[in-house]
């Protein structure tokens, strides 16, 4: 039971890192970007390529995944995303679905349809076991690493948001872009940077979670729903909202599949629908938007 809880927490933290970029993009730029999963997939493939083809060690690949995906995000934002701001949501949805299809097919063509295999370094393959019987807590070193990294990331991001000038500008731009621009805040550049960082985080999440979530062309389509659930339930105006939502989602998913395998996967969806019915703005949104 404790092991399961731990697994759920690890899964949830991973979802959090993956979905955070999406939440911020949605909250900041009011842009529904369904192609976010493609950035995560990119991160996973970067990890696979660097580790398997170029022989880089696992730890070095993670920052590389972040940086490369962030650069990709910045490039795309500047060129094709920017004209789409302010468009009706339907257009944005279709646009990002189109991008996702392109990404999925392109990756399928270049890398093949099968799951890529990631060989974790030995120090991540250990297992720690405490206790016994029903209260046994078994933690794989890999999952411990994930939890620690994600918590560190969350703390770092929270610090950036609340302690730095960039953070306060970002918060201002999220709250009211027009007034922020009126105050001289370079909203354009903030968008660019935020989108890049958000995509980079997705890439990092994809690389970090490569062994659990898998690396294959249909990754964006499989996990997009989960990211969207985290954003919809957690709201898009803070970091803690998505964090709590992601943890809840991860734990519910894992526990559900263990205790009620017959219903397993769809408990999460029912939960989501129920929460959204109760609070359509998400659990942690500050006010009703649009």
């Amino acid at each position, binding site marked *: 039971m404790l*092991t*399961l809880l731990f*697994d759920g927490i690890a*899964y949830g933290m991973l979802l959090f890192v993956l979905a955070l970029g999406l939440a911020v993009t949605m909250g900041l730029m009011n842009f529904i970007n369904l192609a976010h999963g493609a950035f995560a997939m990119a991160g996973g493939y970067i990890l696979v390529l660097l580790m398997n083809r170029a022989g880089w060690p696992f730890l070095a690949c993670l920052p590389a995944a972040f940086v490369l995906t962030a650069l990709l995000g910045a490039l795309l934002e500047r060129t094709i995303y920017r004209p789409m701001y302010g468009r009706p949501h339907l257009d944005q949805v279709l646009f990002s679905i189109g991008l996702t299809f392109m990404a999925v097919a392109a990756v*399928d063509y270049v890398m093949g*349809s*099968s*799951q890529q*295999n990631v*060989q974790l370094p030995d120090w991540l*393959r250990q*297992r720690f*076991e405490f206790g016994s019987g029903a209260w046994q807590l*078994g933690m*794989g070193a*890999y999952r411990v690493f994930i939890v620690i990294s994600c918590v560190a990331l969350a703390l770092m991001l929270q610090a950036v948001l609340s302690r730095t000038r960039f953070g306060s500008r970002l918060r201002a731009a999220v709250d009211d872009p027009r007034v922020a621009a009126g105050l001289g805040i370079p909203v354009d550049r903030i968008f660019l940077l935020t989108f890049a960082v958000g995509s980079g985080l997705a890439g990092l999440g994809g690389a970090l979670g490569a*062994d*659990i979530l*898998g690396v294959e062309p*249909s990754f964006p389509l*499989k996990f997009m729903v989960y990211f969207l659930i985290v954003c919809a339930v957690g709201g898009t105006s803070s970091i803690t909202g998505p964090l709590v939502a992601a943890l809840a989602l991860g734990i519910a*998913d*894992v*526990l559900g*599949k*263990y205790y009620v*395998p017959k219903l*397993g*996967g769809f408990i999460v969806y029912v939960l989501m629908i129920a929460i959204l019915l109760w609070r359509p703005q998400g659990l942690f949104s500050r006010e009703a938007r649009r």
Partner: protein
Amino acid sequence: MNSRRFHLITGAAAAAALAFGMQHAHAQADTLKIGVILPMTGQQASTGKQIDAAIKLWMAQNGNKAGGKTVEVIVKDDAGIPDTTRRLAQELVVNDKVVALAGFGITPSALATAPIATQSKTPMVVMAAATSAITAASPYVVRTSFTLPQAAVGLAEWATKNKIGKVVTLVADYGPGNDAEKYFAERMTLNGGKVLDKLRTPLRSPDFAPVLQKVRDAAPDALFVFLPSGQGAQFMKQFGERGLDKAGIRLIATGDVTDDDQLNDMGDVALGVVSSHHYSAAHDSPANKKFVAAFEAANKFRPNFMAVGGYDGMRVIYNALNASKGARGEALLNAMKGQLFESPRGPVLIDAQTRDIVQDIYIRKVEKKNGQLWNIEFDSIKQMKDPGKSK
């Protein structure tokens, strides 16, 4: 309304143009067409890739003439979606007038096509799907792959002979999985063993973490697994990562899990896994050595059991065409029944009554040879009929 007019005109023009463009060139009377429907994209894409390569190898080795006429193979992609398979089969039969349908990567695809085979009296060669009931779905179905009961029963026999008393079964939740679970459990219990729990994972995007935790909690002697090819690697890793092997739980599986195509990528965690299947790329026969060598020369990957199913499927069709002198329908079907030949996997018989495959089932273990992982056969059950039929 301007854009609407344009939409309209363009739409109508496009429709007309494309409709005219769709007129296929009429087939020459001397060509025999074979319609192969495979999942070239989607979750089962590796199946499609292997069978496609095997068909090309067969044609390269045996030419394109059979039954006195030229043979043309049309390959279509159904992406593993049964609705699409059905429509493609319909088109192949009605428009292209194929003499035989072949392929069928998963059970639902085969089952969806069966009524079309019956209605149009076209023999249907199942090269991949493995549920027992498929051959009963239509009198025109012939199978060259294998059935899960064959593999499952074979493994259950081996398990009980090797001091494995308590087992937990884990299968994917669809036709072949049900077959595997049912027949393994039956044979196990018949031989005095115990099945502690029967677990299922969804066919699509399975999550092995919670289910493996359950296995750990049940503490059996061994875990019996069936998963469709493509999921084996993921599963193996989770199995090792959760420390199940160190907890003393043996892993026994049908050969789909130690798929030759993916085996090398699984890494050392796969070493020692005992599996049962009808084909291993390491099978020690001259026919197989030639097959594997030719296959690897033409492609960058190793053949697996899907490839051998495709290869033998083509052989069955060619033999039947030759024997019946290019006939169609019932005559062609009858020429397929009762065929006996030496396949890269071993001796094979297409049963005349059930139209299903009778072959040797091997028990193998994963070992490392020359730096690569292979399924090394160490025991076999000769000429096993599909246990699913003898009920």
